């Protein structure tokens, strides 16, 4: 139902820190119709060319200043993922994505206040890394 919110087009890129490529990053809108604290993210998954990346390598941020692992995010209640603003999803990986074309799939699920099952959205995009 919220697949169209997931993985904002054109946002996937390698992350360069101190001259080294330390991973890759993408942005996504929320799979819900309202903002929620980060603790209400049920899960996030990233797959590249059909291979799931380890969840412990995923970091998330709403301000690109403070980053949380998914385990840490479970207790983060004072940072809110606002409706209409992106969540930055980063995968820590030396060298990031190799040059060329990749199929990157992002899965986002949020817990809601009254629906018993998490609201999941999935989007796979073809990404070209220069």
């Amino acid at each position, binding site marked *: *139902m*919220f697949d*169209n*919110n997931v993985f904002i087009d054109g946002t996937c890129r390698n992350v360069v820190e101190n001259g080294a490529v330390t991973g890759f990053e993408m942005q996504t*809108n929320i799979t819900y*119709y*309202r*903002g*929620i*604290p980060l*603790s*209400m993210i*049920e899960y996030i998954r990233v797959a590249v060319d059909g291979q799931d990346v380890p969840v412990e390598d995923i970091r998330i941020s709403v301000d690109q200043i403070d980053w949380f692992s998914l385990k840490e995010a*479970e*207790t983060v*209640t004072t940072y*809110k993922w*606002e*409706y*209409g603003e992106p969540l930055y999803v980063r995968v820590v990986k030396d060298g990031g994505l190799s040059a060329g074309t990749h199929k990157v799939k992002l899965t986002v699920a949020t*817990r*809601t*206040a*009254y629906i018993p099952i998490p609201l999941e959205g999935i989007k796979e995009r073809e990404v070209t890394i220069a």
Partner: protein
Amino acid sequence: MSRIKTCVSLYSLQDEYLNHRMNLEQCMQFVKETGAEGVEILPDQMIKNTPDASQEELDKWHSYLKETGLKPVIADIFLNTNLYKNRTLTRRECVDLLVKELELANKMGLHLVRLVSMVPYWVLEPLLPYCEKYDVAVALEVHAGMAFDEPRTVEFIHEMKRLNSKYIGLVIDTGIFCRRFPRVVRNYEMSIGCSAALFDYIEAQFTEDGGDYHKTFIKTGGKFPPEVDAKLTDHDRLMAPIQDGYENYPFSALDEYMPYIKHFHFKLFEMTEEGPEYSMDYKGLLQYLHDHDYDGYVSTEYEGNRFTLAGHPMQEKKQIAMQQAYVQACLKEIQG
């Protein structure tokens, strides 16, 4: 004597807002242009850092109200009982969160909030002093799929009657008055993998004597007749349980609740070119409300946005305007 007034919930413009085609100010200007008198908002959707919104956010909201002349009617609030993954919030935590929402509503110039369906009844008594302090009433949403047969709705209504306060009531979502299954839902679900056989069956459950798929689902435990089951796929069986959020109550189901009803969500799936909504008889309902002296707002809640087919344009503004024009014409005829 009844005076029914129109309102638009900004929920109806969620795709325009999410994709930055319209900001809050533009959404409110649009509502004004439809001729509606009031505006409804989900603070969690369009007011940043709710319920701890900054003064700057509040100032913007008030300036838009002033610009448009719209009456701030109601805020739709939620209770994050599942804020944490490893436990459910305690009663005290739940009440504390809701108190903050009431305080925000007060700062936004509102006197009514909608509590989302399934909010537990036991918040009401501890909340009452705060309702009085902030002069904000709380009203539980009665929504299709979670309406008068849902135990948590029943418990809430029981407690509402026991406490008998002007600060406690109900919001009715007109999705409980679907005379037929919305075809935009059928078309959307079929576009992403459901079969026609599933929706032929679901549609057939809507009958003139009040039958609907919600009732059938409860009666059968979600099992299908063998001849239908033979045609279904695994995807159909997975998606079937969430097709029960459209019910077919008679208007008279509201008789005993009228004194408690604070607000209506005029749910909108699809205004058709011929005029009325595909599933709901707004005119019949407005006549019922007029006859029962309803004095309050009926608020557009467009939900066809989430059933828009891939590659098709979003029709939020068009659908809202069509419904407002229709409802306003009905009211002119009924109320003079």
